[in-house]
């Protein structure tokens, strides 16, 4: 047994065996007299001996709470302001029971059990996959991916593996964040698996993808076409069927990205030609979390051609030794990176599985009527805001119809920059729309405004009067 010395831990609430009695009991059984014996494998010159100069420990919960909240209260949240930022992360109302479920310790803290001991969580996963499948009109859905962009990136790589082609056409109105992720996933020409990204112009009259440009760029060596609907600029790609047809005519796969909260009013992408559907899961009951709420999904027809290219894990409904009893198990595990290392389909790992709990709860709460209602709600509120903003002298809504939730506002005639306008709005506790002037220079001084069900008439009128004032 060890003498009372430097090796004895200090009792800490997170470590049961930091108690002297427990520690000593383990030392005795393990036959250890000096802690350093336990590290005998490590050469002495590998061990760091310098000063740590570490911040002092705060083992008291009261102290750590005070420390963190003092720092975090420097933030100004979207909840205490009026927020019109969307652009890949959207402020929707999160029902209280979504938060209740994702903070349940049973769901929050575990990693991986057996099919029987994880049954409840596996069922949530299956209900997530099933309800996403209903929304997008597909029968095969995987467990979630890190984000909308990473789901799209993997989908593009799935298509390239399927048809052995290496060009993808992407609508030029794509979210620059998402496009940057696609570029990462599409690789470098010097290495294997490179996919060339070719952008398809935006029709300046409509905000939709230009069919003329698409026709000019599509060819039999195109692996896939990728477009979001609604697109990043909020516009509904109403010629989606024609786009899909053009792609299918050359044997290309059609990958469509969606915001599932729109699918109570918009058709499922499977109805207008999607082969692979991807999208975001954040609007379905997950807080924005400064961008830490994002998540994505991939869905396809239940066809081996697609199923065998999934990088994700997925649960399948199956049975047990007891007739009639439901259980869930992983399907196609062997093609994942866990099963096949570098020969697997891309890779998987920890993702955003906890958010499936919020997503499944959210989709169950809304149901078919709730999805239709929230879609209509967002349509009306966002169009009201656009209409009223367009009445402000010098302020133009670039595409005043055919959008969902987000729309582009141009300030060129006001001679003011979006950055100035947003600073002025901020002083009124309003977060103006996302500044597009750098990413979409041809749109001039424009901003992308996002309006959801959380914005009341009063909120929207406040925005309009503030905008009128700051653009004068």
């Amino acid at each position, binding site marked *: 047994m060890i003498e009372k010395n430097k090796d004895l831990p200090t009792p800490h609430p*997170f470590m*049961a065996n930091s108690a002297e009695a427990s520690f000593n009991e383990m030392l005795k059984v393990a036959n250890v007299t000096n802690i350093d014996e336990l590290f005998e494998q490590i050469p002495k010159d*590998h061990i760091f001996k310098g000063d740590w100069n570490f911040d002092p420990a705060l083992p008291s919960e009261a102290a750590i709470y005070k420390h963190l909240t003092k720092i975090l209260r420097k933030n100004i949240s979207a909840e205490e302001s009026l927020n019109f930022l969307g652009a*890949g992360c959207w402020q929707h109302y999160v029902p209280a029971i979504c938060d209740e479920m994702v903070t349940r310790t049973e769901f929050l803290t575990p990693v991986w059990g057996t099919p029987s001991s994880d049954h409840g969580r596996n069922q949530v996963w299956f209900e997530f996959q099933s309800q996403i499948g209903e929304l997008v009109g*597909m029968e095969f859905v995987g467990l979630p991916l890190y984000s909308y962009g990473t789901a799209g990136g993997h989908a593009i790589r799935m298509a390239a593996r399927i048809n052995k082609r290496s060009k993808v056409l992407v609508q030029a109105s794509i979210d620059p964040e998402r496009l940057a992720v696609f570029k990462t996933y599409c690789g470098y020409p010097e290495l294997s698996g490179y996919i060339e990204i070719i952008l398809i112009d935006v029709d300046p009259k409509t905000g939709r993808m230009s069919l003329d440009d698409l026709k000019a760029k599509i060819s039999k060596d195109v692996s896939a076409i990728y477009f979001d609907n609604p697109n990043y600029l909020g516009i509904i790609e*109403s010629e989606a069927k024609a786009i899909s047809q053009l792609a299918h005519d050359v044997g290309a796969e059609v990958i469509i990205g969606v915001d599932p909260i729109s699918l109570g009013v918009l058709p499922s992408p499977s109805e207008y030609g999607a082969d692979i559907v991807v999208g975001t899961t954040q609007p379905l009951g997950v807080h924005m979390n400064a961008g830490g709420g994002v998540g994505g999904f991939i869905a396809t027809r239940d066809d081996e051609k697609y199923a065998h290219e999934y990088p994700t894990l997925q649960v399948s409904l199956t049975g047990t030794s007891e007739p009639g009893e439901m259980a869930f198990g992983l399907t196609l595990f062997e093609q994942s990176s866990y099963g096949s290392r570098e020969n697997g389909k891309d890779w998987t790992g920890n993702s955003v599985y906890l958010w499936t709990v919020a997503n499944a709860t959210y989709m169950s709460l809304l149901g078919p009527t709730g999805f239709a209602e929230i879609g*209509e709600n967002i349509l009306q509120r966002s169009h009201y805001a656009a209409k009223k903003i367009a009445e402000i002298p010098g302020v133009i809504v670039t595409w005043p119809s055919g959008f969902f939730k987000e729309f582009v506002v141009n300030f060129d005639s006001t001679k003011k920059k979006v950055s100035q306008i947003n600073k002025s709005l901020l002083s009124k506790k309003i977060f103006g729309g996302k500044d597009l002037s750098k990413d979409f220079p041809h749109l001039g001084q424009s901003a992308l405004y996002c309006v959801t069900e959380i914005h*009341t008439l009063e909120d929207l009128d406040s925005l309009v009067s503030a905008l009128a004032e700051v653009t004068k």
Partner: protein
Amino acid sequence: MIKSKIRKYHAPVWDEPLVMQMGQSGRRGSIAPVTEPKIVETVGRALDLLPAGMKRVNPLNLPELSEFEVQRHYLHLSQQTLGMMGISLFGTCTMKYNPRVNERIVYQPFVAEMHPHQDPETMQGILEIVNRFDHLLRKLSGLDKFVFQAGGGADAAYTQACITRAYHASRGELAQRNEIITTAQAHPCNPATAAAAGFKIITLALEDDGFPSVEALKAVVSERTAALMVNNPDDIGIYNPHIKEWVKIVHDAGGLCFYDHANFNGVMTRIRAAEIGFDACMYMLHKTFGGPKGGGGPAVGAYGCNEKLIPFLPGPTVEENGDGTFYLKEGGENSVGRIREFLGNIPTVIRAYSWTRSMGIEGLRDAANISVLANNYMEKRLLEIPGITKGMPDVKGRRLEMTRYSLGELTADTGVSCLDVQNRMTDYGVDAYWLSHEPWFIPEPFTPEAGELWSVEDIDYWIDVLETVCNEARSNPELVKSSPHNQVVHKQNSTNLSDPAKWATTWRAYKRKYGISN
């Protein structure tokens, strides 16, 4: 010898239907705010605002339930998830206490209701915590900068693969340097992400010492070497003592060296990536640093690197103004761009900062000591159970955070496999152990990890349950093979899972394949 009294246990059984099978037409669980009449007067009917051909025609076939029914359903499912309610020594994942105070903090609007595109002036609290935590990790690793965009450990390995590309591309050597070297004991995410980034993979086999030899490494290093990606210690608890030499060999050949520090827990405050010579490393905040696992994320793979690689980091990065305030800086021309959208899973960065501050440097050292001691304590007791042997028994020296064992002898004697034992242990409220990553080179493997959380009584109980099950395997093997018997559901029938005609990842697929009408 069994030390504890084995307690009665039975998992909750609600025989809970699928949510898609529940409810009644017309029931509502959530209602959107009523659209004010003035809005309706101004814009008209909602559906008229949609372009022709883009209105939903087919109604969604989603469940219709009241709010309480939804709540109770998911509460039942949470109860039917064992996880940390019992004892989980799931090796390689370092099961920890996830301090509840962190949930109280991150669910407040000053974290939850923050938008990533807000003016940085309004995000100073978050940027400060990211910066503070970056500095703590710099101290623990000796490296120069950390970013948190990667959504997990595998995503951090992918970050390394992308940075490796960008680094060699910036020097005009990428076409030549297209090989990444790893070992059979490195986590599968290393070869998998490197391959997805376009590299060829060279995997070194383990030798008798428990790691590949320096000669084996030298034989594959060349002007084609882009990088080395390795874990150390590995998840058998073996530390490669030649790792400094490895790093030097790869550096001398012009390659980068990445330290997958997945098993950092046992060597916290002893091993720093920078002193070993690595250019970069990865820590899992949802594991070593007290963030919750969530059944598989949201997670964070904290990626840190030295000065040489900073220009290649994904943007935006958090930078200091010098007056106690912070700004976001986009990546420069050499940046890899984005690995994922936005700054990363910020709530988990906050949780990890909170956990690390709560522990302090002495707490981290205590945690490492307790974890490695607990592993050696377990080893002593486990090897007394007939049928259990130690993986790679000839490797000398005490194992670190984890040891891999084999149930091969028990299986040979009884026909009971490591999966059967795992199932049966859940009948006692003890959740699954980790088996082994691919490739398996130890028969019927299992890899427990006690870490610093579990009390010596919990560890004893876990071992006692395992011993009880091993005894059952000898006295009544069928009991173990047909288990579980006290769980939410019985033994899963996995024969359908790889049959395309029978698998069903959605309820609509299941209904079609099995002829069920809704």
